[in-house]
């Protein structure tokens, strides 16, 4: 199968602290890949390296066909990224945010406006087109952030805890968006602390103390650890962690 991400022995050290410790894995094109781990396990750091926001201390890899160490700017053209923190411009409107990012990724004015209409209609959010983003409730902000991360139809989207602090209904809607994007061939790389969300993923990895301890489909992992739910699998693995929160 065609891999959109392959990394081998990827490592990030901050001084004497090894945040990410020789991780090796691959994500295939079109997959929803769950990237799990306790707080402080190194998920965000690993993801930031994959997006070109953070330089690996050692190890190698490629994302969307470009070398992680040398072609960071090329990678950025082909991915979308939604950070743990809401990071759209609160003093711009919904449409202005989408137009800004559409323009940045090189979409023509025409393409941008079509895309904005299409996304807002799909979200049933066309009425709020000219609302300032700062005035929206968190759930909507997160959905909007996802739309902005995928406005340029990237091959691969990184979502860092996209549903943190969001209510269960919005969470479900959010996953509908994710699955719809995946159905159109976008690869999803997502971190989460919700184990029910982990079940939605095609494959998941569980990081403990900067290393990947397990990587497989949810069903296989459950069977391997003799657990009924992903929650139990996660407990088993995350309890071994020596690092604190």
């Amino acid at each position: 199968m065609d891999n959109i991400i392959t990394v081998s022995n990827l490592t990030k050290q901050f001084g004497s602290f090894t945040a990410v410790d020789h991780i090796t894995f691959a994500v295939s094109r079109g997959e929803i890949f769950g990237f799990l781990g306790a707080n402080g396990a190194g998920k965000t750091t690993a993801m930031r390296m994959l997006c070109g926001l953070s330089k690996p201390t050692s190890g190698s890899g490629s994302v969307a066909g470009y070398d992680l160490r040398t072609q960071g700017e090329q990678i950025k053209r082909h991915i979308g990224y939604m950070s743990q923190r809401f990071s759209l411009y609160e003093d711009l409107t919904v449409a202005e945010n989408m137009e800004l990012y559409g323009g940045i990724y090189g979409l023509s004015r025409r393409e941008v406006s079509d895309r904005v209409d299409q996304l807002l209609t799909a979200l049933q959010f066309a009425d709020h087109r000219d609302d300032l983003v700062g005035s929206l409730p968190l759930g909507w902000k997160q959905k909007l952030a996802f739309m902005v991360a995928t406005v340029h139809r990237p091959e691969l989207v990184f979502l860092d805890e996209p549903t943190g602090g969001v209510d269960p209904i919005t969470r479900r809607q959010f996953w509908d968006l994710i699955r719809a994007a995946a159905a159109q061939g976008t690869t999803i790389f997502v971190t989460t602390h919700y184990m029910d969300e982990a079940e939605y993923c095609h494959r998941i990895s569980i990081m403990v103390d900067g290393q990947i301890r397990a990587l497989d489909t949810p069903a296989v992992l459950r069977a391997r650890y003799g657990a009924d739910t992903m929650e139990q699998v996660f407990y088993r693995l995350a309890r071994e962690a020596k690092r604190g929160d």
Partner: protein
Amino acid sequence: MKHTLPILIRKEVTQFRRNKVLPRIVVMMPLMLVLVLPLVTQMDVKNISVAFIDHDRSPLTLRMESHLAHSNYFRLCEPVGSFEEAEQMLDDGKVDLVVSIPEHFERHLTLGDPKPILLEANAVNATKGAQGMQYALQTIASAAMEKARGRGAAIGAEQLLTVENRYNPTGNYRHFMLPALMIVLLILVCCFLPLLNIMTEKEHGTIEQINVTPVGRLEFILAKLIPYWLLALVLLAVAMLLAWAVYGLLPAGAAALVFLAAFLFALCISGFAVTIANISDTMQQAIFVMFFFVMFFMLMSGLFTPIDSMPRWAQGITYAFPPRYVIDVFRSVYLKGTLFAELWFDFLMLTLLAVVFNLLATVTYKKQS
């Protein structure tokens, strides 16, 4: 990508317009700087109270007394009998200046053997003391000169003081201050606004969202700075027009030189601001560091006090401060009408510093940690 720059600039302009405070302050700034600050930053000293002790009481000394009494700068206090009494008043802060004329002053002067007049000033406020002394000398000298002229006698230059304010003939402090205040305006717009803008993006995390896109570092920074450069030049033009309308102050030389220097200066300090923003983690840190430097920029660049009277080592340091050059251009062009050919060094240094600061800004901006 060619068309990202206009998109990013439009975003900056929209955000600026939508801000509730910034546009208003920006409109207020040139008004306050030109209309209010020159009046309150006056260093012209007025109402100096003088104790005049006249042991001579000759026509000449009476003329001196009347000159002092009729000057705007002095307030003659009640006649004082003795020098001791006057000194006591100086101690008590009742007078700022004591002028004591020795006995037979005029006679000795006429005989070519002048006895010195004693001037004592309260120099706790050094500026007031020094200026009071200076004015008193001028006033007394002018009285002596009138007297001499009246007699038709030839006057030796060494007998009289001549103080002449070249280029700013009335010694009008406003004409000296206005160019400096215009530079303060540029510093506020091109140092603080870009700094606060970038730090806000850092603190809100929006810069990270930009860093994961293909937007180049240069485009991102240019999009932030271009609007402020334009804003600074527009505000400068407004301030110059106001200075003309209100104080009748127009550049004696080419206004284009003022704008060219202002633009180069804007490049310098905005590059500096981006550098500070790049190396700062929080808004608090950035603002504090910026104030630290701006304090030196304002006080050590000859904006308010002349560089020539600073200690040698300090004068050396000022060569690294861009305001030093721009103030020289502003004052020279405004007051003396100096030509480009005489200001080439200032322009060269501004260009050089612009390159250095912007290189620093580019090097310190990291899309990747």
